[in-house]
């Protein structure tokens, strides 16, 4: 503990603000704590520093920053071309050509181009690991030879193209996808006369693909009834020609708000999610948010309940908080309804602030600890009482004011950032599970700005990205403040 205090005292936190046009961090994946970005990282100029790959440009890192002068457009391969960085090279896959580019001095040099027609695809959801848009993944080294195979997902299956000599040939069509089913999307029974039309049921292929090593995992979601689903996981190995099934496992029927995820590396399918319930023990029908997790494919569950507000969703419910490789459970609890119905009414009507508690339950011994390892309590100023439904309260309700996914000091332990005023962000460093209510850094922000957390420069320390409607994103790069 003394060491932690000393470390905090010696290494104060500082932020350098930069405007980075085009950068967007739209949120965080609630079951993994990973940032959802419109860019990916790669070192494309070979200087050992991480560059930022956008859909239309590359931002090279220079002297710890991304100056405007280091922003370069990507090679022109048509708007529809997919792009992916691989081993320091940039791959662009247009309708009929797969090109590999390498950065040279001050421009792109096409190293090689392969004639490789892209299969026609339905507008499928992105495969796991892809981030959407032009940067949808299409390269994966299934055979481990250092040369990536190309894959493309269509309703027929997964097309895999392997390198043969000077070109890529289709090595196989892996028929591993589930059949399309009619979705239960509700069709209105009553139509306005001018809007009357025949509507065909929508067909949907509800599955997710995960590429790992020589395998492809297909995750299938099957609705049991309106409230429960069952997940199936089939693992395939690609043997160079076809997919060989390695095993299938199916979960119990579980609540539809549970989603498959990876909370540890035990190889078992994990499920996690959350839902809102209503308290039965109070005069006011107060909402309770339940955070669920199963580490054994739905056989047993770990549930934590927290007092909530209607419609509240935590930004992130599972994150590897302590860097031990296992996701820990995060619960957020509002203090708005503390103290019973009378007190809650009083607070709703008159108090322009809200007490908020974040709890972290460590994953250990095949479960989640009963008692939280960390309990952080903040007071968030809402500008007006909750009953007035102001802007701050709307943001609070949407779970936009608290983030636990960042690691600002790079110690492997997540830290907390809270927008506790409409014009202020407070960063609280956590070391050795010690939370201090006094913030380690405070950032003044515009009232309209919304924040997100991501390690933009990939230096192991999370940064804060501010978005504001009609303005360029502003990134606050974290660094250790020198003596």
């Amino acid at each position, binding site marked *: 503990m003394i060491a932690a205090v000393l470390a905090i005292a010696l290494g104060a936190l500082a932020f350098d603000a930069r405007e980075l046009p085009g950068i967007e961090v739209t949120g965080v994946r609630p079951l993994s704590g990973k940032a959802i970005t419109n860019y990916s990282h790669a070192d494309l100029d070979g200087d050992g520093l991480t560059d930022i790959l956008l859909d239309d440009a590359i931002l090279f890192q220079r002297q710890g920053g991304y100056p405007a002068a280091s922003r370069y457009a990507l090679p022109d391969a048509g708007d529809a071309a997919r792009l992916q960085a691989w081993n320091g090279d940039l791959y662009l896959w247009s309708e009929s050509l797969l090109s590999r580019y390498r950065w040279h001095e001050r421009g792109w040099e096409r190293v090689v181009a392969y004639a490789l027609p892209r299969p026609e695809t339905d507008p499928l959801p992105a495969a796991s690991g892809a981030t959407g848009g032009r940067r949808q993944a299409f390269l994966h080294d299934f055979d481990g030879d250092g040369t990536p195979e190309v894959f493309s997902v269509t309703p027929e299956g997964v097309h895999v193209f392997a390198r043969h000599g000077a070109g890529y040939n289709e090595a196989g069509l892996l028929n591993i996808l589930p059949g399309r089913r009619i979705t239960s999307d509700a069709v209105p029974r009553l139509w306005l006369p001018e809007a009357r039309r025949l509507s065909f049921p929508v067909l949907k292929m509800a599955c997710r693909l995960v590429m790992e090593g020589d395998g492809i995992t297909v995750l299938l979601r099957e609705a049991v009834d309106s409230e429960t689903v069952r997940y199936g996981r089939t693992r395939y190995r690609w043997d160079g020609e076809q997919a060989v099934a390695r095993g299938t496992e199916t979960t119990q029927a579980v609540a539809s708000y549970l989603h498959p995820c990876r909370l540890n590396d035990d190889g078992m399918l994990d499920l996690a999610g959350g839902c809102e319930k209503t308290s039965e023990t109070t005069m006011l029908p107060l909402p309770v948010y339940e955070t669920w997790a199963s580490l054994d494919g739905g056989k047993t569950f770990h549930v934590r309940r927290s007092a909530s507000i209607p419609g509240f969703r935590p930004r992130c419910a599972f994150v590897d908080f302590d860097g031990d490789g296992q996701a820990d459970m995060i619960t957020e609890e509002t203090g708005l309804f503390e103290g019973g119905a009378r007190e809650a009414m009083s607070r709703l009507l*008159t108090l322009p602030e809200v007490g908020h508690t974040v709890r972290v339950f460590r994953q250990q011994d095949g479960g989640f600890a009963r008692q939280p390892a960390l309990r952080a309590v903040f007071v968030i100023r809402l500008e007006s009482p909750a009953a007035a439904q102001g802007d701050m309260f709307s943001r609070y309700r949407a779970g936009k004011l608290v983030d636990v996914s960042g690691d600002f000091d790079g110690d492997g332990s997540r830290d907390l950032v809270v927008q506790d005023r409409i014009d202020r962000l407070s960063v609280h460093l956590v070391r050795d599970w010690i939370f201090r209510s006094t913030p380690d850094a405070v950032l003044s922000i515009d009232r309209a700005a919304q924040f997100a957390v991501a390690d933009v420069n990939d230096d192991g320390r999370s940064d804060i990205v501010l978005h504001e409607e009609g303005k360029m994103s502003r990134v606050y790069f974290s660094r250790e403040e020198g003596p």
Partner: protein
Amino acid sequence: MMGRVLTAYGVEVTKALRQRFTALGPALVILAVLGALPVHPVARDGVSDYAFVAYVIPVALNSLGLLLLLVYCAGLVSGEVADGSIRQTLVRPILRHEYILAKLLLGMSYAVLLTLTAVITAWGIAYIFGEMRGVSFGGDLVFADNEMLATGALATLAGLAPQFAAVAFAIMVSTFTRNGATATGVTVGLWVLVDLVKYPLGMAPFVFTTYLEMPWQVFSNRCEAVDAYWQPMLYYCLACSGGTFLVCSLVAIVVFHRRNFPA
């Protein structure tokens, strides 16, 4: 001094036992508990009925019970001032602060009476007609019955602290005023006013009214398997309630000490 206080307290109890309002309070509390049964039925259906206890006690105790307690205590001194009977008492060998202490003891006893009535009735109904087998959730037994009992017992005890503060507050107002109706009006009015301004003025954590239902909320949260902690709320609750009790009692004694009781 304690002997005289206890004597006066004995007299107050004797008087209270013969007043209708004294019995009306517990009767209404019991009715409130029974009245909650249609809203929150209790049955032997395999589901523990702690939720009934958690639901009904704050309703019976912190809404109705609190009002009864305030009305009762607000009239303890002012009622006797209004009908003049206080003059018969104050010419007896008892000091004025001893008289106020006896009244405080009586008010506290009434708070205990209402609390025990609500708690015993609610737990009794739940045990007799329902099931109390601990709180289970997600297949786990989150809190065993004895843990819930202990939580309930602690909530009962902790819940008394702000009620005692409320007693002192009402008696303090009672010493300012000349009759029971005014005292009740002023007490409830001040209470509402304090509740309205305590949050905007940022003094809510230091006002005992904030903690009236909190102990039972811990119980309620545990019924819901929601994580709930006694600390630091319990310390705040005890400190604020204790502080308010002392300050209000002291003010009541000083004010009462300075008052004249002419014809």
